[in-house]
């Protein structure tokens, strides 16, 4: 097989033009690093918004004088709904306790009241995937019709703003990744295309000496793969440096960054992604070879 020769050729070519190739590798590395950081940011922002539904709840204020049976019925009716994750009954006693917590310093105002003026209530938590304004509104109007329910309350503004943050981050994220991916593929392509332009004469000569398409292509594909792989490797080194050198330190001084998750698989795959992009770029750049 000529592959070992092709490999040697590719290595020679890389070494002979080491500076220009270092440039290419660094460009690819920078591109992959930026894409990694972008993915990382999006991943984490998404993770953070995912936690938000836990903080959102629908409150049902119940009519006075319901029996335990009635309350059980209401709870059962609520649990039937797909969107409902958790139901929590809050009796009148607990409601007043909570109010005491809210007015703190002035809780002596509440002393001397004979009757508890607050209604019992039920707190509803929603499932992650049903967390959107339309489901919540539908649910609220359904609930209102349940016997024994006096009033339904939910943070409508909170709900819509959370929802727009989520869709906003997703849209922008996908957009950013699309732009950056196009950018990195483009860099790989143009790196190999330039390589190809540089070797145009050489390819002509090889053809005239009787080289087959495979023989001509092999060193380019290997070279593209090596450059891409090396770019990916350096991108990984950069990303790890970013993580350990900078991010870990930020976390120490800024609690905001705690709870941020690093998808390590992404790093390990960077050289493979680089390799793949390099080879793809090389094949696209070579195009069809005509004799």
């Amino acid at each position, binding site marked *: 097989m000529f592959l070992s*020769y092709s490999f040697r050729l590719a290595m020679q070519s890389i070494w002979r033009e080491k500076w220009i190739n270092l440039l290419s590798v660094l460009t690819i590395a920078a591109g992959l690093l930026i894409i990694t950081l972008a993915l990382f940011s999006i991943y984490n922002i998404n993770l953070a918004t995912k936690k938000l539904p836990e903080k959102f709840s629908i409150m049902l204020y119940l009519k006075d004088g319901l029996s335990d049976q009635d309350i059980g019925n209401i709870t059962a009716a609520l649990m039937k709904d797909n969107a409902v994750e958790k139901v929590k009954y809050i009796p009148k006693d607990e409601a007043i306790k909570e109010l005491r917590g809210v007015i703190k310093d002035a809780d002596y105002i509440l002393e001397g009241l004979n009757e508890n003026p607050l209604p019992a209530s039920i707190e509803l938590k929603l499932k992650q995937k049903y967390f959107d304004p339309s489901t919540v509104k539908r649910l609220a109007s359904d609930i209102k019709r349940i016997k024994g329910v006096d009033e339904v309350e939910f943070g409508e503004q909170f709900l819509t703003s959370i929802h727009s943050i989520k869709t906003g981050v997703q849209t922008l994220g996908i957009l950013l990744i699309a732009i950056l991916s196009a950018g990195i593929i483009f860099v790989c392509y143009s790196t190999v295309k330039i390589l190809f332009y540089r070797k145009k*004469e050489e390819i002509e000569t*090889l053809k005239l*000496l009787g*080289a*087959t*398409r495979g023989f001509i292509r092999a060193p380019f594909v290997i070279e593209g793969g090596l450059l891409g792989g090396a770019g990916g490797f350096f991108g990984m080194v950069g990303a790890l440096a970013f993580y350990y050198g900078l991010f870990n330190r930020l976390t120490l001084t800024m609690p905001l960054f705690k709870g941020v998750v690093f998808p390590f698989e992404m790093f390990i795959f960077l050289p493979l992604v680089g390799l793949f992009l390099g080879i793809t770029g090389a094949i696209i750049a070579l195009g069809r070879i005509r004799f």
Partner: protein
Amino acid sequence: MIHFYNVSKFYENQTAIRNITFSVEKGEMAFITGKSGAGKSTLLKLIYVAEKPDEGKISIAGWETDKLKESSIPFLRRNIGIVFQDFRLLDNKNVFDNVALTLRIRGVDENEVKTRVFDALKMVTLRHKTGSFPKTLSGGEQQMVVIARAIVGEPTILLADEPTGNLDPDTAAGIIRVFKEINAKGITILIATHNRELFRNTGRRVIRLDTGNFVGEEAG
């Protein structure tokens, strides 16, 4: 071995070859001569399928070039050793690797590559320049590297385009001796040249071209 039937080749504003019919038989050593721009290089290019004829048919070593699949072209070319007029040496490879290319393309074993390349370089008296790069060679030395590259593959046809343009008369005579040795082994040789000294008194066939036209044959 080489057969042209009514072959013509036109460039935009130029007729390079006009209606030429000729044959070179197996084991023959023939010359093509004619003024600058007469169509000598074009004729050779038609043989190694770097150009396609606009009219007529060409048959090379039994291959009909018009029926040739594109993917077969490399295998036709492996039968042909070519001394290019413009050298076509790869500047980023040294003499050894330039000559070895012919063999490596064919997937020849590295040990055999070594012996055969050194043999070919010995034939053109260039063994002392094995590690040099083309840009550091004199014009004549470069031309000898090209000749070595053409003969190292032991082709059945050898085409040489002005192979002695940069060589002094003694060296040129030496090259022609090498060609004759190779020819004696049964290899068909076709040489395009201006240099009358090369074919004078050889008794070989000389084909004369003038602005694309076949204008006669003679014995050198």
